[in-house]
């Protein structure tokens, strides 16, 4: 498939996959724990729930801006991470992944929470009477019952992440090969005189990619729940 694409196109495609993959994988453990917290305490969790779902309703540009404020090169946390751990998000693909992770976080949490809610709450009690402690239950009872949610949440979040634009361009700018994912490449092509054909090609790529992952997600989901 790669040979039909120009080097720049395949670069954008691979970067998109890498950014989205990293975003989903890094956010998943946190999404799992957040979903458990939300499932356990429906009332006390409402503040947390609102906070988690905020990226879903905020303008992505606002999220990107907030990320700059927190993780920017001159922001306290950003500067500290850079100085002490050598982690830099700004102008880097890891920053794009961070932005995507944050934006798609609620999608993962929701899917996992749905799976947890539909699981039998009595199973944990049964496990306790059989000698399973808290960590044991988390790994052997809660995690397996969350698997359908983890998988469907990951696929939905991954597909959504492929389309993330506002937060990425605001936080880490539009650098080919580093932060220029497919949507950013489309935007760049449209900004270039005579770039419509390029934009159209990238657009078709996006559509094919999105359809592929949505279908894959649907099929996996059905298998898991059956």
């Amino acid at each position: 498939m790669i040979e039909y694409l120009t080097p720049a196109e395949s670069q954008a495609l691979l970067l998109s996959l890498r950014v989205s993959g990293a975003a989903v994988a890094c956010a998943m453990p946190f999404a799992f724990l957040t979903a458990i917290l939300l499932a356990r305490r429906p009332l006390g969790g409402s503040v947390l729930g609102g906070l988690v779902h905020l990226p879903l309703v905020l303008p992505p540009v606002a999220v990107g801006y907030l990320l700059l404020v927190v993780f920017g090169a001159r922001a306290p946390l950003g500067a500290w991470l850079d100085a002490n751990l050598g982690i830099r998000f700004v102008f880097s693909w890891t920053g794009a992944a961070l932005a995507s992770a944050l934006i798609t976080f609620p999608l993962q949490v929701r899917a996992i929470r749905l799976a947890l809610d539909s699981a039998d709450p009595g199973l944990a009690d049964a496990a306790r009477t059989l000698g399973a402690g808290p960590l044991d239950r988390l790994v052997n009872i809660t995690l397996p019952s969350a698997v359908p949610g983890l998988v469907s949440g990951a696929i939905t979040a991954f597909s959504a992440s492929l389309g993330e634009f506002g937060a990425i361009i605001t936080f880490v700018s539009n650098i080919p090969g580093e932060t220029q994912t497919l949507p950013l490449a489309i935007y760049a092509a449209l900004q270039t005189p005579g770039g419509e054909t390029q934009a159209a090609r990238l657009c078709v790529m996006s559509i094919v990619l999105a359809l592929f992952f949505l279908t894959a997600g649907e099929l996996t989901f059905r298998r898991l729940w059956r």
Partner: protein
Amino acid sequence: MTLEVSLRHQAGSFTLEAQFATQGRVTALFGPSGAGKSTIVAAVAGLIRPGRGRVALDGRVLTDVPGVFVRAERRRIAVVFQDARLFPRMSVRDNLLFGWRRAAAKADTATIAHVIDLLGLEPLLPRLPRKLSGGEKSRVALGRALLASPEMLLLDEPLASLDAARRGEILPYLDRLARETRLPMLYVSHHVDEVARLADEIVVLEAGRVKAQGSVFDLLTDVDAIAGVPPLGAVFEAEVREHRDDGLTVLAFDGGVLYVRQLAGGTGTRMRVRLRAEDIMLALKQPEAVSANNVLACTVKEIRTSGDEADVQLMCGATRLVARITASSRARLGLAPGMPLYAVVKSVTVERGAE
């Protein structure tokens, strides 16, 4: 085994204030739904922390709130829940071994094989729980609890979600279990059949309080104790005396003999027998030419009338029986305590071979 329970627990508008101690091998917690049976099970298992109270097993204090509260996973008290609660993503084999893997003192392979054999689980081992019938799930849940090598087994209406046919299928397993393993059990039920068959000791609960407690032989004839939970009937032990050529087996008990349809079990085998109150007719004189095989000479001990029904407690030798007749029959016969009379037994249920 001695189980001491003393609890005060408030859950919404329901107050549990129950206190009992039992030494029976199989103790039945008996009573209508909402009486607090499941709350007691949860408290004994350590799944809820009671407002106040104490739970001790053989002097080992599990709960003494405020103060001591051993967590459920450390109690070594296994529970068989009404809804089985098998882990849906594990095979039957993994379900069975879940508690075993976590037990400090693991049952050996011979014991595992024995439990699998006892409960007929061999063909189910590779399957997932969703492929099992209700009765099969109950058996797996029972096996899983046993293999955790618990010090006590709590059975919270393990048969309640099953229809009569399935219940009849599982009861013999429970029965074998109660006899073969020396495991103390607390058995929650609102079915007299199950209690009469399995229990040694009964604790009757009503609205969060202990209403009566006693041996299964005494309590099931006691109309006050188990009022509202029919059917009433006497349970007692009898011994096979002989198998006759005419197809009847003679059972001897403390008060006479009973003739029942041919039974398995050699002479001297002890059986648990149940006579339902509805299945006993009363006669003032020795009846002649009746179809019933069993006519027992008794004395009236006590009569309790409620509405248009009368429950007559009888002593047949040292054995307590109970007959349910109409209030008008009672008046017609002029029954009074101390009167000698004859109990015509229409049907005898042999519940199980006692050990």
